[in-house]
């Protein structure tokens, strides 16, 4: 991992994961709602937009317009999909996390013996 652009922030990781989870239904409002449902965090829509744009710039997401609905006044949404680079990134982050997690000394062992 080289360069600043390839680091991933906490919110970025969360959004990236949620986009992956939502699969074909991932657009800004859906991401916002999903985050709220899953974590209870209420993130402002402008922050979601900013993160999505950033992730797209970094090449982890791709997007297309579509799915106009009545509640949006007939306006289309921008749907995001996880790219393979994005998926790889998530894998990487996850394996790093797990590796580190496994190195944690287990507190329960210390207490019982």
């Amino acid at each position, binding site marked *: 991992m080289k360069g600043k652009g390839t680091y991933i922030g906490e919110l970025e990781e969360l959004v990236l994961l949620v986009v992956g989870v939502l699969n074909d239904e991932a*657009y*800004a*409002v859906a991401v*916002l*709602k999903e985050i709220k449902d899953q974590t209870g965090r209420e993130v*402002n*829509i*402008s*922050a979601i*937009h*900013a993160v999505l*744009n950033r992730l797209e710039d970094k090449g982890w997401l791709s997007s297309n*317009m579509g799915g*106009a*609905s009545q*509640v*949006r*006044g007939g*306006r*289309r*949404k*921008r749907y995001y999909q996880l790219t393979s680079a994005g998926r790889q990134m998530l894998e990487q982050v996850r394996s790093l996390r797990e590796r580190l997690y496994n190195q944690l000394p287990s507190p329960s062992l210390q207490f019982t013996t």
Partner: protein
Amino acid sequence: MNQRKPPKWADRFLAWYCNPKLLEQIQGDVHELFYWRLEEKGPEKAGRAFVWDVIRLFKWSNIKRTKRKTQKINNIAMFKTYFKIGLRNLWKQRMPSTINIIGLSLAIGCCIVSFKWIEFNTVKDNFHKRADDIYLVTPVRTVDGYKNRYGKVRLDVGDKIASEVPGVDEVIRLRQSEVKIETNDNTFENLISFADPNFFEVFSFPEVHGDVGAFKDLSAVVISESFAETMFGTEYPIGKVLRITLDDEVLNFEVRGVFGKPRGNSSIRLELIVNFEVYRRGKDPQNNTANTFVLLNEQANQQTTQANMASIVEYQRASDERNPYEEIKLEPLITMASNSNDIYGGLGNTPPMAPIVVLTCIGVFMLILSISNYVNISTMMAMKRVKEIGVRKVIGGQRRQLIMQFMVENLILCVLAMVIGALLASAFFLPWFNKISGSVLTLDIEHHKNLWLFLGALLMFVTFASGAYPAFYISSFKPVVIFRGMQRSKSKRWLTSLLLTFQMTLAIITIVAGVMFVHTNKVNESRDWGYDQYSKLVVRLPEKVTYQTLTSELEKLPDVEGIAGSRGFIGLFFDRRKVVLEEQEDYVAIFPVTDNYAELMEVRLKEGQFFDKGINTQSKSILVNEAFMNRFGLSIDNLKPVTLDSTTYAVVGVVEDFHYSSFSDIIRPALFKLTAEDDITDVTVKVREGTALTMRETLKDIMEELEPEERAQVYVQDAVFDHHFEEMDGIRNIMLFTATLSILLSAMGLFGLVSINISSRIRDFGIKKVLGATARHLSNDVYRKFAVILAIAVLVGGALSVFIIEMLLDSAYGYHESIGVIPLSLAAIILLFIAFITINTQIRQVKKMNPAETLRVE
């Protein structure tokens, strides 16, 4: 679903600021969120949350209209095509382009001349390498209750400054006077400068031959290149010897160096430089003064050094109780000339304001005229290209690119106009201007940084002022409108009409000015001078020749009809003095004369009598003019004693007003008083009619005989105002030139508009012709459009010119007729006639045209 809608204003605000490319997605999201919250939290909270979202989304990444990185394309190559298309377009629309280029280049030529002259008269002394560190020492003294600044300092004070004041690196004294200079072949009266030998270390004049610093040697002199030329012609000047008369003592100086013309405009005129010691030796430093410059070092500045001068002020006050300094101020070299009015005995001249204003006005006038032309014509020109614009837009041309394209075309045209304008200026306008203004301006394009800056700024200004409106206007059309053929909305025509009206108004004003100046000059040439100016010659008496000697010589001549003496004479030289009459006082022109002078000059007596013949020259009688009587409210029955130089005089006669100074001044109070023969400096000789010119030569010969040392000065009385007349003719020529140019420019503008107007309606005319419209019918159609504009211009221009030109005339002439119906209608007729001809040249084409040809197109 609830029918509540998100707050409208916030929604609109979002739509306004948001990049249209992002708007759909963003607006959709916030709307969706709003309805979701509406269900969950109720309308109030949802509304507030909506507003909050809109505010949070208000950030640069959402506002900026530029595309994403992927959409950025290489625009540089486009400029090449813009350039090519621009040139093709210029060529395709030759006629309007030529009008634009000619108009702009004429205006630019005028601007360059104005700039050169104004720069020459205002920017001075900034070419010295250390110009910012050089200051003139100007002590302040209170005289008669007024604080005055003086440009000269006592020599010992200068020495003190050099040795005592911290921060002063060098002190340079400069003193100039007229001296007699002789070589083996020539004798000159010339300006000589005495300067301290470190002069050239401080002031930057280029060295041409020899060593310019050599004048530290007391017997050396360094001279300017131009002086070397007049003195020695093409001979090498170094080593030549000059004999210079200083204080009645003839000294030999060897030329050891020659310096050239500086790179800028210097207010210190230098021709010969001799060591200051030569001036100083044998003189009391406390009683002699000189212009004193100081060069400050880097640590010092004007304020600190002025403060440091306190000890010098103390020293001076202790040694001179009669004229103590209040303080010593430093005048920066660069502003020295422009402030020279406030500094007594300083160097340099204040730039003359009136011509600067007039020239600026002319330059700006011309620029406005030609830019109006340009805006009008190029808007109309571009209207013919709307299809091109439509196509460009449809295939993805952005508005910015279109604007860019128009601006590039515009720039090409302006650069062309600039080059032609500069050529015009250097080949015609400048030499012509030099001739009438007596200046020596040249266009030195290579080494003139300010000129480059000016031209650059002018180019930018002209390009934007002329091109911005057409470019923005044309590129704003929507392709749909263009292809439906609806773009010819009349809504924008008002600008064209307005600009044309404005141009015509300016033209009227300048024509009125031209007419009035021609007329007033003509009137002034035959104006009654108030005395008989013909057949009179005036001889200036050299010091060694007395009035008596000359008179006895002159009386022998048969053609001499009368001789009178005076100190100064009517027309060129006179003194103004303060006259007190009871409570009132004023400055009055004084002519000290012999008893017969007024009669000899044939000044007309109004009341009372002339001086008695043979009256005692000590007698306290005076003759005054009518203006004097009016100024002091006197009448012949109510005369009061007049006090002049604390002597009281009695008025014995009143003469009619006569012009004793140029026609630029109104006649102010004047008086004749008697003078003793010893004080006479000028002898007026009345000669037989028709012999003035031959007698002038005779008088010159007599003077040469009486005083071979000096050049004889003999004036012809009726020629004393010749210089004034020449000057006024110069101004008249400038006014005529301006008027001609502005007529030309507005006629060209009109021509361009009419021709475009006709060519865009050529098919209308064709159809009308086929249907049997007469030539008259067709031309009426065109006339009607322009008649209203011309009518308004004539009315407004006429009214304005009465104010503006009246002011101009007041400042140029002492007396002039006020602007009447005749010049106004003359101006209107000239303008209308030219407009008529201009329109007609175009209408003729319509008349001659074969309707079949125009209708067949396509």
